[in-house]
């Protein structure tokens, strides 16, 4: 169904990764990002690569989908590689083309940096976007950030806004389609002409969409008020998040991985990343 696209890149599944507590997954993602940035030696990167491949296999998400998700980053990856290969100086000169000198260090650096970008992407998508529904992600964030409420940060309000936005995305998509069809029936043309023309053709869609969104918001506010909503104060939740043994185990595993990376950096520093 078309309305499903809006719900992020979440892949339905029932793996260990899917079942982890969303708060634990947010922590895991942050920890794993730190570990990735700590890695310097080729051996450490190798370990992380193995671990990430393991994650993908455990999650049960098709490898094809994971690889496809990297397509938008092709430009950044290629750009990083070129910069590092041609501009990096080092001790071992491999070959020279006119004024361009290519060093072994440059190539190693390029490879490791590209690997780092890919690992970052895999880890955030494995822990967060692919295995966690946007709504439990919002819930997790609200509870993780709840200490900030003491500093008058409107944590609950933000998460409520996120929830409502997620709830209304499919409704608004449906509405957009209806309005587009209505305008097409009156002879509007959205597919021809220059970009400016096409952008202009969108105005008769956006105006009614905005008007209706405001009307919906007004009605929703009334409905929420009728259901005794008064903000986050004194509110309870039906589904309270509880850390399970597997959450602690997963966090422990990533901490150990970090330790291993530090040790590999120190004792097997061959082909290290130089900055």
């Amino acid at each position, binding site marked *: 169904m078309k309305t499903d696209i809006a719900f992020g890149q979440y892949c339905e599944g029932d793996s260990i990764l899917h079942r982890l507590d969303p708060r634990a997954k947010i922590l895991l993602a942050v920890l794993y990002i730190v570990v990735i940035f700590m890695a310097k030696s080729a051996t450490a990167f190798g370990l992380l690569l193995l671990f990430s491949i393991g994650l993908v296999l455990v999650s049960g998400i098709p490898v094809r989908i994971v690889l496809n998700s990297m397509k938008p980053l092709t430009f950044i990856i290629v750009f990083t590689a070129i910069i590092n290969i041609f501009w990096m100086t080092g001790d071992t000169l491999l070959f020279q083309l006119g004024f361009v000198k290519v060093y072994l260090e440059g190539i190693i650096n390029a490879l490791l940096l590209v690997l780092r970008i890919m690992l970052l992407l895999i880890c955030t998508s494995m822990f967060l976007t692919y295995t966690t529904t946007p709504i439990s992600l919002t819930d997790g964030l609200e509870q993780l950030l709840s200490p900030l409420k003491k500093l008058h940060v409107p944590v609950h309000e933000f998460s409520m806004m996120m929830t409502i936005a997620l709830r209304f995305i499919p409704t608004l998509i449906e509405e957009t389609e209806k309005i587009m069809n209505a305008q097409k029936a009156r002879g509007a043309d959205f597919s021809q002409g220059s970009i400016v023309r096409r952008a202009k053709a969108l105005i008769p869609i956006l105006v009614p969409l905005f008007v209706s969104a405001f009307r919906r918001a007004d009605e929703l506010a009334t409905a929420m008020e009728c259901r005794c909503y008064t903000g986050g104060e004194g*509110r309870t939740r039906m589904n309270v998040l509880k850390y399970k043994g597997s959450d602690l185990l997963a966090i422990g595993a990533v901490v150990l991985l970090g330790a291993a990376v530090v040790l590999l950096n120190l004792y097997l520093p061959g082909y290290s990343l130089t900055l």
Partner: protein
Amino acid sequence: MSEVIRVENLCYSYPEDEGTPAVPALKDVSFSIEEGSFTAILGHNGSGKSTLAKVLCMICQPDSGKLFLHGKEMTAEDITDADIMKARREIGMVFQNPDNQIVATVVEEDVAFGCENLGIPSDEIRRRVDEALEIVGMTRYARHQPHKLSGGQKQRIAVAGTIAMKRKVIIFDESTAMLDPLGRKEVMDTIIRLNREDGITVLMITHYMNEAALADRIIVMNRGEILKDGSPNQVFGEPESMWEAGLDVPQTTELLYRCRQMGYNVPLDVFDTDECARIIAQAVLNQEGRD
């Protein structure tokens, strides 16, 4: 039986807007609602019936007149926001557009929303939500996403959210107006069951005559005033005055009325199609027997 709602001489005008003068929506409206009753409020567009619902839910403050909920005057000078919140715990409202009253992305989360606002402990919410979904017959859809449900199902979710809060009075503001006939029947069946089996006081605003005929009592609104107030028999028993006010009567009543004008001796207060057909057949047979 005790009184849950009483309004006395209620007046309300929509404030004037640029160019348009203030519109009086309610003029001197008085009535009271008994606990456990099923009342329909009938009227065409602009008759003030939705405004009345908003005043009863304390979304709109009346210009003058008094509103009593469970004997407590909600229009008194010293009423605080806390009092209004407390009163709202008792009165639920189900709106017209099923999409614009669902907050969460999972059915059961939405049913729980009201209870969560009241600060009820988690396991108690769980119990109430399961019970409420059972009552409206939506247990199977507990983990579904609301936008994939039909209109009738969405309205039943909204009803479940209200009963999970243990409210004893539910106001339906044209809750069936945007539904297809099937969805309308689903919601009407739920409303009737809630009233008959769970003793919930129902106030149903509608412009469908057939739905109104199912109530114990009908209040007909016209231009902000109460035109008629009585049982369906009394209200539809005089179709002429309904037609004068630009309102319809159920099709069965209209048919029986015409039969009566043709000289058949038939009652007017039959709202069931099959029953109506039987009565007309009987009347025709009797007439032939006499000729």
